[in-house]
């Protein structure tokens, strides 16, 4: 029995090593200066340039137009993550509420129209989506960045599932207590959904924060870049440079990683619940 456990731990530790090392190396590299890295390769020990490097990427203007720095990108990522999560939760809760709690002739049709979005991931309709956003004048705006992303069905399904599991008697009791549709939603359903909202918020925040393709298309103005979207620019500057700034590139990567990772780790149990239940 004891021996078995040791081999289990070895396998798990190897797994942890595989998962953790790349990011740790990225972080360690981000604390050295560019010349050391260029000469010696990736660094396995912490260096002395931590503050300098992070200060540079956060506050020193970079990019081609010198309009963007890490702080602006961090802000944009935050706006995208929060805007996406909040927008999605609001829109999908309202839609799921209508579908589950109302009897109306077009209910099934509406459900299928929303359902159809699962069949149309952004990647299969990139070009026309871009053209539409462009014709609406939403390129390089936060709304152009966020709104087209928030309508997919995942959130609606998640809340629909949850609402269906709420006992019918609660609605009946509330009706006898004189609550109409709005009161029931506000006083009973939303407070009841708190945990679910938290869970889906975490997943959606991470999802929004990590968006890449859509921001790449829709933001051409560097002051609108998110961290994740800026990655390619980082690379382009890097490819062209004499001595590539691996340290600064990795510092930006770490900046892009830390906020969503912190949220996932801190709210781990909600996150796991949301992930496992939303895909059921």
């Amino acid at each position, binding site marked *: 029995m004891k021996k078995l456990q040791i081999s289990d731990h070895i396998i798990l530790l190897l797994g942890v090593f595989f998962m953790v090392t790349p990011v740790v190396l990225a972080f360690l590299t981000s604390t050295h200066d560019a010349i050391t890295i260029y000469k010696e390769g990736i660094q396995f020990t912490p260096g002395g340039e931590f503050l300098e490097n992070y200060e540079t990427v956060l506050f020193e203007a970079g990019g081609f137009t010198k309009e963007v720095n890490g702080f602006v990108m961090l802000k944009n990522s935050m706006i995208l993550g929060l805007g996406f999560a909040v927008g999605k939760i609001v829109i999908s809760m309202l839609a799921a509420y209508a579908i589950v709690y109302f009897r109306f002739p077009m209910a099934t049709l509406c459900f299928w129209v929303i359902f159809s979005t699962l069949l149309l991931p952004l990647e*299969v309709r990139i070009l026309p989506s871009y053209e539409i956003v462009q014709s609406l004048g939403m390129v390089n705006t936060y709304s152009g960045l966020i709104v087209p992303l928030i309508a997919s069905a995942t959130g609606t399904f998640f809340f629909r599932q949850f609402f269906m599991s709420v006992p019918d008697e609660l609605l009946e009791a509330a009706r006898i207590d004189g609550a109409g549709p709005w009161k029931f939603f506000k006083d009973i359903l939303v407070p009841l959904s708190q945990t679910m909202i938290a869970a889906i918020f975490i997943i959606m925040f991470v999802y929004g924060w990590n968006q890449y393709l859509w921001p790449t298309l829709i933001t051409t103005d560097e002051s609108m870049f998110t961290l994740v979207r800026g990655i390619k620019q980082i690379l382009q500057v890097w490819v062209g440079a004499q001595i590539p700034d691996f340290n600064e590139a990795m510092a930006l990567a770490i900046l892009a990683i830390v906020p969503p990772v912190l949220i996932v780790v801190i709210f781990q149990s909600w996150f796991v619940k949301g992930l496992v239940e939303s895909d059921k």
Partner: protein
Amino acid sequence: MKKVQFQSPWLPYLLLLPQLGIVTVFFLWPAAQAIQSSFYLEDPFGFGSTYVGLDNFKDMITSTDYGRVARFTAVFTFFVTVLSLGIALLLAVKADKVLRGASAYKTLLMWVYAVAPPVAGLIGVLLFDQHVGPIVDLFAMFGWKMQIGVNYFDTSFAMIVTAVWKQIPVNFIFFLSGLQGISKSVQEAASIDCRSGFRRFWTVTFPLLAPTGFFLLIINITYAFFDTFGIVDVIVKNEPGNNPVTLVYKVYLDGFRGNDLGGSSAQSVILMAMVFILTIIQFRLIERRVHYT
């Protein structure tokens, strides 16, 4: 639906309006446009377009380039799916078993979920870099001189490793929650009936995990097809020339770089058909999952 429901002539429509509005403008309309323009040839100088029937599809299927990309996508999907599912299952089984440190392992194995694919790609590029990457140094000791971005095979290898790394956490979380969902009494009954732990896993635990596994299979195929865009894009570093790319990346490339609207749209339509099939299978499985539990 519910036994008791509200009735109102306008309220449900009002509640659905935001979602339906966005769905129509940003999903249905562009999808319809993609389908439509897949049958048209766009004039390169922007002077209108002509109806060409299925020509775009014919061109696409007969093009050697498309065939190459499709083959790579299939190989890539296969390896990413098999490896990330296999490794995640192994880790989940072990994490479910150990008594000490279980929650620490769990956290350490799943946090990578929050890393964006292109950021994973960037770290991959760094680790596989010809000049500074430790992985390249490591393999050089065994006589393998890796040239990421130059050598087709080496680049594919780096892409697959990065994509697997990024996907293990999701699979791990689902497998672990699947394992924890297996009732204690079933496991106890199995341990009375079967002495060999290995045999017990294959005859009892594995079949009970099968619904989760099938479900994850679809999720992983979808991931390898679509969500790896960021990884591919960063690793090929804007030089897709002879590098391996996936079908989704080619849609982007032909549409935005090549300005081949019709060809790009035809590829989109094929991808839509694939998503359609995958989604149908997925929903079938979800129904089955419900029956299992």
